[in-house]
Every structure is written in structure tokens, then in C-alpha cells.
């Protein structure tokens, strides 16, 4: 059995965000991390592998620098890593990205007992679209927002989180499941893992390798081919600064309370 884990390297948006003069995010100046939900997908794959014989293949699309992240995933326990990288792929929206990744997985081969795991969404876009769209391109059933995955033979019983509870869904492999952080606690790399990572295969698939793949429509990939385009990006206007109270904690609190009383809030 092969388990493909789709992973994205993202800028760490939880800390300080570097901004270019034109208002776009300066990714080069921000630390790159493995997308958090994707680590839960990787952990789920490694747990399944512990129970039965499986090959875990980490798949990512990104610039050559993402190779470092792939080494980390190998150190975590992935058996193989595949980096899809090419200038032609840059600037792809979710529609374009998913057909490239689906094409790459199709190229690598997907059999009846195989599984694809993804994180629910990446923190730089928050769209949660690429997972379902890969499933559609490969004609596989999907389950998103997984909080529990139980495998019996080729049948997966998955708990899928809803806003007010969950639904329990059964699907057969091959299928695609997207994972959220409630699913598990991702493991760290081990020292042995780091040493063995260098001996594991890291393959790069570029445009040449994938351009004849039937699932990839070369006219709808990349920045210009993507169906959606950025029309305008902007910052919200700076609202006039409100009133800052001064004084001791008690004095500030009293000034606030007076204002609130004045405005009939209290």
C-alpha cells in the first residue's frame, strides 16, 4: 500500500509578517514552515504504516527551496519524497495546483489499496480547496475535516468534524482524506531519522516530466493560466485612532467606565 501525503511549505504567518513596498507579503523574509495541518496528515500516514506494511510518499509543489522541507519529512519517517517544481507551475491558484498534483500522483501511480492524505488547509491561503480538487481530478471519494481514521482492509471509517458535532463516513480506498489538528499529535524527527533521511529518495518532477500527463491541462496552470486572478490587493484604511486612556490601571479603568456610562453601554 502507498500513502501519498500532500504537503505545503508556507511562510509562518503567526509571527511578524514582512511586507513588500507594494503591499504584498515578502515570503523571502519570513521563516518557512511545514503547513501545520499537513503535519497531522503526515502523522496519520505514519501511524497507519506502523500497523501494516505501507510506503509513505510525501508530495509537495513548490520552489526548489522546499527540498529542505522534504528532507524533514523523510526524517519524520516518510519513505520517499517527491517535489513538483517548475517555473511554469508558479502562481497557480487552487484549480491549477490541484490538477498538477493530481497529475503527479497519477504519474507516480495510484492503486486500489492506496490512500491520499492532505491537511485541511494551508495557513497562507486558508482555502481548503486543493484536497477536494485533487480527489475530483483523480475521481476518488473524499472525506474532509477528519478527526479520526480507522482502517479495516480497504475500508476507512472517518469521523468528519461538523460545526456542531461530527458525521461518521465510510469510504473504500483509493480515497482522499483531509486532516485537522484534532486528529493527532505530530511526532518530531528523531536523530536516526535525520541520519537516514539523506539515504532516502527525493525526486524532483518538473514541467518536462509532467507536461504530457493527461490530467494536466497546460493552458490552465501557472499565474496566467489559473482560472482566478488577483484583481486588486489592498490594505484596509487606517481608522482614526481611538482614545488612549492614561494613568494607573485603576484610573484608566474609571475613565473607561465613565465613557461607557456616557454612551449608555452600561
Amino acid at each position, binding site marked *: 500500500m502507498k500513502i501519498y501525503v500532500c504537503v505545503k511549505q508556507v511562510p509562518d*504567518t*503567526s509571527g511578524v*509578517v514582512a*511586507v513588500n513596498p507594494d503591499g*504584498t*507579503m515578502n515570503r523571502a523574509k519570513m521563516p518557512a514552515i511545514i503547513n501545520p495541518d499537513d503535519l497531522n496528515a503526515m502523522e496519520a500516514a505514519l501511524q497507519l504504516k506502523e500497523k501494516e506494511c505501507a510506503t509513505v510518499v510525501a508530495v509537495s509543489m513548490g520552489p526548489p527551496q522546499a527540498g529542505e522541507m522534504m528532507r524533514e519529512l523523510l526524517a519524520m519517517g516518510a519513505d520517499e519524497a517527491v517535489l513538483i517544481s517548475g517555473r511554469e507551475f508558479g502562481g497557480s491558484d*487552487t*484549480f491549477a495546483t*490541484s490538477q498538477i498534483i493530481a497529475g503527479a500522483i497519477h504519474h507516480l501511480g495510484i492503486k486500489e489499496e492506496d490512500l491520499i492524505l492532505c491537511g485541511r488547509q494551508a495557513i*497562507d*491561503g*486558508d*482555502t*481548503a*480547496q*486543493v484536497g*477536494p*480538487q485533487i*480527489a*475530483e481530478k483523480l475521481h476518488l*471519494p473524499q*472525506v*474532509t475535516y477528519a478527526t479520526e481514521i480507522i482502517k479495516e482492509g480497504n475500508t476507512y471509517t472517518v469521523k*468528519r468534524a*461538523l*460545526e456542531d*458535532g*461530527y*458525521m*461518521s*463516513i*465510510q*469510504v473504500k480506498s483509493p*480515497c482522499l482524506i483531509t486532516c485537522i489538528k484534532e486528529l493527532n499529535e505530530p511526532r518530531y524527527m528523531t536523530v536516526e531519522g535525520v541520519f537516514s533521511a539523506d539515504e532516502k529518495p527525493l525526486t524532483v518532477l518538473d514541467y518536462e516530466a509532467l507536461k504530457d500527463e493527461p490530467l494536466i491541462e497546460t493552458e490552465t496552470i501557472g499565474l496566467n493560466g489559473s*482560472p*482566478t486572478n*488577483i*484583481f*486588486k*490587493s*489592498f*490594505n484596509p*484604511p487606517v*481608522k482614526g*485612532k*481611538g*482614545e*488612549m*486612556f492614561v494613568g494607573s*490601571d*485603576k484610573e*484608566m*479603568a*474609571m475613565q*473607561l*467606565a465613565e465613557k*461607557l456610562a456616557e*454612551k449608555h*453601554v*452600561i
Partner: protein
Amino acid sequence: MAEYKSSAIEEFSNIWVFCEQRDGKLMNTDFELISEARKLADQRGSKLVALLLGGEGIGDLAKELGGYGADQVIVCEDPALAVYTNEAYSKVVCDMVMKYKPEVLLIGASNIGRDLGPRCAARLHTGLTADCTHLDIDMNTYVDFLDKNSNVDVKNTEFKMEDVNMKMTRPAFGGHLMATIICPRFRPCMATVRPGVLKKEEYDQTKAEACEITIVKPNIDTAALHEKVLEIVKEAKEVVDLIGADVVVSIGNGAAKDIETAKKLALELADALGGGVVGSSRALVDAGLMDADRQVGQTGKTVHPKVYVALGISGAIQHQAGMQNSELIIAVNKNENEPIFEIADYGLVGDLFKVVPEMINAINSMK
């Protein structure tokens, strides 16, 4: 039927809203989306159509959608649609879109909408913009929106006034920037829209009566379905009604060192302000200190309470996206340079663990 081509954009017309139901009940998001889509349909001079899928008898709910502004409701009734499954729902939604060719398709960005939308967009060969917070079709309306809500100097910017692509605005890059997205070459133009962002209009019984109901028998081969729903469980956990609360007191990173005390203080402050709900920044949820259903922000919930208090929250755009439309914003933070003070009506610089008890005392003393 002639071949379906998403690039034949001139063949597509009308504004559609996919209306989600759970347990045979419509969702509040349906009414928000219909209300907003009404404006889009008026801007475009086209018809507003609601698409409703469900089990037998679901058509009884259709008129209510008319009351919020739908001209027509297309009802697909089938036992296989009583409970949401990705397979059956995406099949029926795509079949309907291919048959009627809407220009725009809006879906609520719930856990179900975010499962359905991308699947359909990929099959229909079109773009999808996730989690939109604002939509325009008419360029004048969009320019007006930019003028009020952005730093763009609209007077010195050229716009093609005849552009009729739907302009879909959402926070981007982890919520540090806003972006307007278009899908110019394919139809329908699809967007998921965040619950709680758009305003629901008044219900109008006359409109409900006038609404045209079209029943369509969906074509589902149940034997070919792979996905089986074993059970649906409602969790008896405390329901956090952030969206409906009049007072929201949220805590952020500054609360991490003593989360239990901070939660207690936040709740007491909310009580002093008339009673409300405790919210959270993304950082505390990511750190596992607060439940995800309390998160305010781009990836959490959007709130517009009468009073919003931010305790120990820096206030990145990601957070602002979820609370900036609150009527009154009060911020407490140790660092006077945090962006939260840029949007707060009242700011108190200090340690929340010391300032909040004083706030509670002061407010109670005024009563």
C-alpha cells in the same frame, strides 16, 4: 444536450445560491447569502435563483427563501439527498449548473460548503474563491466599496466601468492583506462566503408568495455511490454563540501565561458589560489553549457585537477581519504599538491580569 463549455461565458446568466439544510432546516447563512445575492442580481439585472437539495418534503422550505429575495427556487428532492454526502450533492449541483448555466454560484463557507464547493468547481472547470467577505458585480459599487474600505486612491486609479466580472474580496496571505479576486475566463464564477459576514434582510411574506418553485427530479444512481454515512452525532458540548452575542471579550497571546485566570476574568468582564461570550485569537487556538469554536478572525468566526473587548491581542488583519465591524472596540495590551490600538475606540495600555479586575470594579461601581 450541446456540449457544456465553462469558457462559453456568454451562455451563462443568473445569480445562484446553493442553500444548505441540515436535518431538514435551512441555515442562517442561506438567508444572509440570498439577501446579498439579491443586490448582485439587481446590479446585474438578472434573476436570483436558490438551489435547494434535500430529502422528501424539503420543497416545503422553498417559499421561505423567496421571502428573503429569491425569484425562483430549484428544489431537488431525493432520499439520497436527505443527509449531505459529497458524492450525491456534487453530482446534483453539477448536473443543475450544466443544465441551467448560472453566471454566479455562491455557497456558504461551512464545513459542508467548503467540502462541496471545490469539488464542484474542479468538475465544472471553473475558479472558486474561498471565504469571501464582500462581493460586487457593478464596478461603481466596487469602487465605492474600495473608497470606503481600503487605502486605494480611487480617484487616481483607472477602472473599466463596463467590467461585469464578480469581484470577490477576501483577506489574503494569512489575513495580513485584503485581495479582490476575479474569474474572467470561466463560468459560473464561484465563491464560498463566510457565515455571519453578510447582513440578512427583513423577511417579506409577499415576496415569499410570489417566488417561483421548480421541482426537479435529480438523477442519482444510488447503487453507484461509494460514500456511506454511518451516523451523525450532535455533540452536547456548550454551544458558543459568538456570532449572536452582544458582548464578546476575546483573549490572545497575552493570556497564555495563565489561561484559566484569563478566561475567568474575560467572562466576568463580559458579565459586567451585560453578559456575553468569551472569544479567542488564533494563536491560543493553535496552541491548544482555547477551543476552535471560540476563534474570532479570518479562519474563525466573524462577529459584530455591540461591544468587543480584545485582551492581550495584537490585532493582525487576520483577527481584525473577524471583529472590525463591532460597534465599539476596547483593547487592553501591554504594548502600545500593537495594531489593535489602531482600530480600537478605547485603548488601555497595561497587563490584562491587573487592568481587567480594575475594569470590572469600575464598571460595576457605575451601575
